[in-house]
């Protein structure tokens, strides 16, 4: 098919990139924050709050993707 790469259209590749890329990016952010919290000795309670808030954000992002997929 013309205009496709390995059988995927540009739109599909862009949406893969966005979902996987953004997911990976969030994981990476989680790792950076975890490291920062450890190195800056933010205190273990600070680590708890940072991780809790970020992981809820991450779960929200995943939930949103799942709900969208169901609705559409």
């Amino acid at each position, binding site marked *: 098919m013309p205009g496709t790469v390995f059988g995927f259209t540009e739109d599909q590749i862009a949406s893969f990139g966005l979902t996987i890329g953004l997911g990976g990016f969030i994981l990476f952010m989680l790792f950076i924050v975890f490291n920062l919290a450890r190195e800056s000795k933010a*205190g*273990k*309670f600070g*680590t*708890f*709050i940072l*991780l*809790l*808030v*970020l*992981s*809820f*954000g991450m*779960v*929200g*992002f995943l939930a*949103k993707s799942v*709900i*969208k997929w169901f*609705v559409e």
Partner: protein
Amino acid sequence: MNEAHAPPPVAITLTSPLRWLALGWQDLRTNPVPGLLHGLAAALFGASLMWLAQGHFWWKAGAFSGLVLVAPVVLVGLLLVSREAQLGRRVGMPAVLKLWRSADPRLVLFGILLALAGTAWVLLSAGLLAFWAPQPIGTLGDFVAHVVLAPDDGLFIVWLMIGALLAAPVFASSVVTLPLLLDTEQPLPVAVAHSWRVVAQYPVVMVLWALLIALIVAVGLLTWLLGLIVLLPWLGHASWHAYVQLKRAGAFGLPGSWGGVQ
């Protein structure tokens, strides 16, 4: 409890929350009646709220968030059932009702504090959405359409993150408080301080535990509350085991340094 019978110390790892859930499930299977009655009561209470607050989304949202935060107090009877099971005794609803009738002022005060925290959470959440959402949110449909499915990812995720930020101190104050109050004669502020200390000692494990609780409750809500009949008592029993395992890991000082189940 003499030293000869003291159980070996337990290590707290990332898989510990799953172990607590497994032990809680075992308790629910061995003695299902009190748990299922609690679950049924919670689901019926939730359903009557839905019915009473028809069309008033904020009443519903408020009542539910409040319910989730106050649930630990409601489930205190199941902690008792698990505690007695560990001591080799099988107790039913009469023992739970007796605990309720005793109206332990520490438990009552903790329940009131959690309810206040729940109210503050809902007010802030409503404020955030009123300030930020592109359109007024009046129904659950509005919430899904304009917040959850908004083309811009930000609002829903920020709303969840702020929710988590506000829930963090509540979770930290309550994660082991109730089993500790049930198991010992410690006053409420001491129990809450122990709870915060445990969270600070095992931050990653506790985040995982919080996520598991949130996901399990979400599944219960998504099944039109029916799932809660089983899931709520499961969490209730599991939170007793979380306390016992943390205690055995030495999270509250040396095992055996105070009374209660070892």
